[in-house]
């Protein structure tokens, strides 16, 4: 089917833009069901403690308190996507400050808050495990019975040791990366009630209504068809709402009290009890030949998953998969460990384990280029993967591979070609400018894990379409993009597409909105549904006109015969179908192609990868260590841009989040206590920190994607930190090995180099 594109590729405004701008869009935190109870969660005061006794009697008799729940109220008190290691409410122990111990339901928020202070918990504090390296030692106190090594694996292809012996140069460094907090505008929030059919309904921010429903039902031991989960507009997620937050607690309150409830985390609760990006230590030893060909890379990855695994095992896989960058390297060796500590909980965060290791490998590449006196883009191009190549895991790259093209665009960009001129344009002698480059790679789709999604399409009697997806609108604009895709597939106006989203009662399971692949997955399932729907409509048109079905084509809401003489409106077709009891709806399905996982991994390799290159221009104040990013050029391999406006927004947003990751964002955890609990202490970039950002897509098309599109949600953040770090090296001659690169860290780095050089 030749697909004319009338809507795909157009910068049409987001359908939710106006209602969000004027405050009409309803987020979960905007909902106040009548007669609601206010939920509040009592959280652990200790990073690691045995719970000896919980006494709620005083709190329960406090005026306004309706109910208090503890672990005794949870039939199956463990959940988790991979390993069920997380309690709904702590029973034996608490494993981080903020671990939930009890849920209060009260008539007023004040009563709920006061009741928290009246619950008596007798703790026996245990030694806290706070350093992942310490945690790995066998004699270290155990966070979980099974020990502190949540997951450990070793993967080797070729022979790195031999390659090291034969190499011309070897670069070896240890990198450390800090903990990043999602810091969405809307904290974790939801409401719950019984609907008119007696169905327990949870309306809460999330990324997967079906998975949330599964976790609710499996822990509370209730049948899945008795529960409905709805995910309205979500005020930001970035992976942070991929795990359970308020959902089970809400379900519990309403199930037991038979009353509606509302539970909205405060900002402090969100930073404490929300998940985070894994802090980590990455040791890397990389070998190259004099001509720049990479020979070997040996990597040791240690990620701190905190008190519970969450999606940590998969995050570790993504780190393993991408730690060699988008390069051909014949000999690789990876040891990877996921460690339990009492440092909060790490799980999914935009990039999902890749930003950390790409910071390492892209710094390594830069160091190699420097030693070889070679242009850093030239070095990258010499080793870049191309379509059809065999990757480091002996995996054939069948999808589109746009990294070489992205790097070529970077090499020809004015900022790179004229970098000496840019660098010379500094206002003051102590301000130095530098320009850095970095590549990025990450798989989209769930890789070797089964990954399947469904989309429903229904023809309405007005001749419009209702598209049903369980995709969640987390601010990324997926609904608008899907409407554009649907309009082009169903040959109608984009306004004729109505989207029903993220509701286990109303929409089929389109799987979780994550891994940069919701458009890819839903778009492909939609293509299947559209094919089925148009086929049906073609037969109806034939029946109505007496002409054979194959003469009909579709355009702008009409079935039109080849000779143009017969035109039947979609509304006419719909009326006919309705009158003749022909079902007006179809369901399309798409299963993502995958390969067997390589031994020692869960979900890698992927068949489909996203790529990007980035350039950064920075100014470093050599007297204070302050870094200002002046310009970013981000070149993502997009396959095909469905909506240039949302595309630009995604890439710019990711870039700014990347600046935060590189320079300022760090959850400070001291003795298990989070010191950065709100936005006055945990800093995210403001508009004043956002430089000029130029976004240049590579659009080579990915045949398996809808209209050639690939995923773009995560890739934008990945090259930013290494590009900035490399630019800093270029500016002041010192290589930052630890992010965030705070002024103080850089100040001492610059000083230590000066004293090495004997000056000052």
């Amino acid at each position, binding site marked *: 089917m030749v697909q004319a594109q009338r809507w795909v590729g157009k910068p049409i405004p987001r359908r939710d833009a106006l209602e969000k701008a004027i405050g009409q869009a309803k987020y979960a935190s905007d909902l106040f069901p009548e007669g609601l109870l206010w939920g509040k969660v009592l959280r652990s005061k200790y990073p690691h403690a045995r719970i000896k006794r919980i006494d709620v009697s005083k709190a329960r008799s406090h005026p306004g308190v309706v109910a208090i729940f503890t672990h005794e109220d949870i039939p199956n008190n463990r959940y988790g996507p991979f390993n069920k290691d997380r309690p709904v409410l702590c029973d034996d122990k608490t494993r981080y400050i903020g671990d939930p111990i009890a849920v209060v339901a009260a008539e007023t928020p*004040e009563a709920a*808050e006061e009741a928290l202070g009246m619950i008596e918990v007798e703790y026996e504090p245990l030694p806290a495990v706070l350093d992942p390296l310490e945690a790995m030692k066998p004699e270290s106190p155990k966070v979980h019975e099974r020990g502190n090594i949540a997951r450990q694996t070793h993967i080797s292809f070729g022979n790195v040791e031999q390659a090291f012996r034969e190499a011309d140069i070897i670069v070896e460094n240890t990198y450390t990366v800090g903990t990043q907090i999602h810091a969405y505008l809307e904290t974790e929030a939801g409401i719950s009630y019984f609907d008119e059919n007696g169905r327990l309904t949870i309306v809460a921010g999330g990324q997967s209504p079906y998975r949330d429903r599964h976790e609710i039902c499996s822990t509370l031991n209730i049948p899945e068809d008795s529960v409905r989960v709805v995910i309205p507009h979500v005020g930001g997620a970035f992976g942070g709402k991929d795990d359970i937050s308020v959902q089970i607690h809400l379900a519990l309150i309403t199930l037991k009290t038979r009353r509606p409830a509302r539970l909205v985390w405060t900002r402090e609760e969100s930073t404490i009890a929300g998940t985070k990006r894994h802090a980590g230590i990455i040791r890397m030893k990389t070998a190259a030949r004099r001509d720049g060909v990479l020979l070997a890379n040996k990597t040791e990855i240690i990620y701190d998953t905190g008190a519970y695994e969450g999606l940590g095992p998969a995050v570790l896989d993504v780190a393993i998969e991408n730690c060699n960058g988008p390069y051909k390297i014949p000999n690789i060796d990876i040891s990877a460990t996921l460690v339990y500590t009492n440092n909060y909980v790490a799980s999914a965060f935009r990039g999902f384990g890749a930003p950390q290791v790409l910071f390492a490998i892209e710094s390594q590449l830069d160091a190699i280029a420097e030693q070889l006196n070679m242009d850093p883009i030239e070095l990258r191009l010499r080793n870049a993967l191309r379509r059809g190549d065999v990757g480091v895991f002996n995996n054939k790259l069948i999808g589109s591979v746009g990294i070489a093209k992205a790097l070529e665009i970077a090499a020809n960009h004015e900022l790179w070609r004229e970098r000496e001129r840019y660098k010379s344009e500094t206002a003051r002698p102590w301000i130095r400018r530098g320009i850095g480059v970095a590549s990025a790679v990450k798989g989209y789709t769930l890789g070797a894990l089964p990954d399947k999604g469904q989309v429903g399409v229904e023809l309405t009697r007005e001749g419009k379409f209702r598209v049903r997806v369980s995709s969640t609108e987390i601010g990324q604009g997926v609904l608008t993009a899907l409407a554009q895709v649907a309009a082009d597939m169903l040959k109608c106006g984009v306004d004729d597409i109505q989207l029903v989203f993220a509701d286990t009662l109303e929409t089929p399971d389109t799987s979780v909105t994550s891994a940069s692949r919701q458009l890819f997955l839903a778009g492909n399932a939609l293509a299947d549904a559209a094919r089925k729907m148009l086929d049906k409509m073609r037969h109806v048109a034939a029946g109505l006109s007496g002409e054979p079905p194959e003469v009909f084509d579709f355009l702008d809401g009409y079935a039109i015969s080849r000779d143009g003489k017969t035109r039947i409106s979609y509304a006419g077709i719909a009326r006919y179908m309705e009158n003749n009891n022909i079902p007006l709806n179809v369901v399309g399905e798409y299963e993502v192609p995958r390969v067997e996982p390589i031994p020692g991994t869960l979900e890698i390799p992927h068949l489909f990868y996203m790529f990007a290159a980035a350039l950064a221009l920075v100014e470093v104040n050599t*007297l204070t260590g302050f870094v200002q990013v002046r310009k970013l050029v981000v070149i993502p391999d997009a396959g095909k841009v469905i909506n240039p406006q949302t595309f630009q927004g995604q890439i710019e947003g990711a870039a700014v989040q990347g600046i935060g990751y590189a320079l300022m964002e760090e959850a400070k955890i001291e003795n298990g206590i989070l010191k950065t609990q709100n936005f*006055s202490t945990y800093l995210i970039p*403001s508009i*004043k920190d956002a430089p000029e950002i130029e976004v240049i897509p590579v659009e080579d098309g990915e045949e398996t994607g809808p209209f050639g599109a690939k995923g773009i949600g995560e890739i934008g953040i990945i090259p930013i930190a290494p590009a900035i770090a490399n630019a800093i090296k270029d500016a002041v001659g010192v290589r930052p090995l630890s992010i965030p690169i*705070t002024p103080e860290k850089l*100040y001492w780095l610059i000083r230590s180099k000066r004293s090495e050089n004997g000056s000052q």
Partner: protein
Amino acid sequence: MYPKSFQYFAPKSVKDAISLLNKLRGEAKVIAGGQSLVPMMKLRLATPAYLIDLNKIKGLEYIKAGRGVIQIGALTRHSTIEKSELIRERVPIMAEAASHIGDPQVRNLGTIGGALAHCDPAGDWGAVILALRGEIRVAGPRGQRTIKADNFFVDAFTPALKPNELITEIRIPTPPEGSGGAYLKMERRAGDFAIAGVAAQITISPDGTCKYAGIGLTALGPTSLRAKKAEEALVGRELTDEVIDEAAEAAAEDAKPFDDPLRGSAEFRRAMARVLTRRAVKQALSRARGG
């Protein structure tokens, strides 16, 4: 978190406010812009049983030129000072400092009196008022008194105020001809409290030597500090690069910074005192010379 519940009063005069304060001694807090007090109440670091709102009192929000002094009412908002023509003309360092406080919302509500009473070592006003040798007018049950800036900042979050006293006015001696000032603030990000800040105010004699120098330090000690040794290094001398370096070195010695997990180690901040003082004095000098 929610603040603990409290009883609210909105007196119409300074006198009424003081008698309320006097009566409810110890359990009451006055609220001006609320930009420090409300966050403290939400964190339950402050749990006053009574709040006395100053915002209904007329005549506490003004900026005027008196004889040899600029008078600023305690309830004057940061943003009013930032935009005031009089301030920009006579004491531009104050407009510059105001522009660095928090964000526009904070500046629109926060007051200079509230900021000084809060006595946060990382607050920006303290260093500026010290550098300008300002005075703080205070009203209590027994009338008014004046506290010199030098004697006002007792300790972190501890001003030289009695619980039943109110700040009513800030007085700044009008800098003479040949003066210039600069407030430099190093922040992790626009809108954050200072890692370190330096206020420098100088006056140059017709003979080219430095007649007056005021150096105030922000976030470099338990309170806002006056860098006296740095001032001494400047006064009476011609401000060459060497002399300014000497003063910068002295300011680093005057500083009493401490380690802060968020905003940097003591050592780093001491180094920043040096860098910022050097630059602030140079800027003040060039402004004093009409640059």
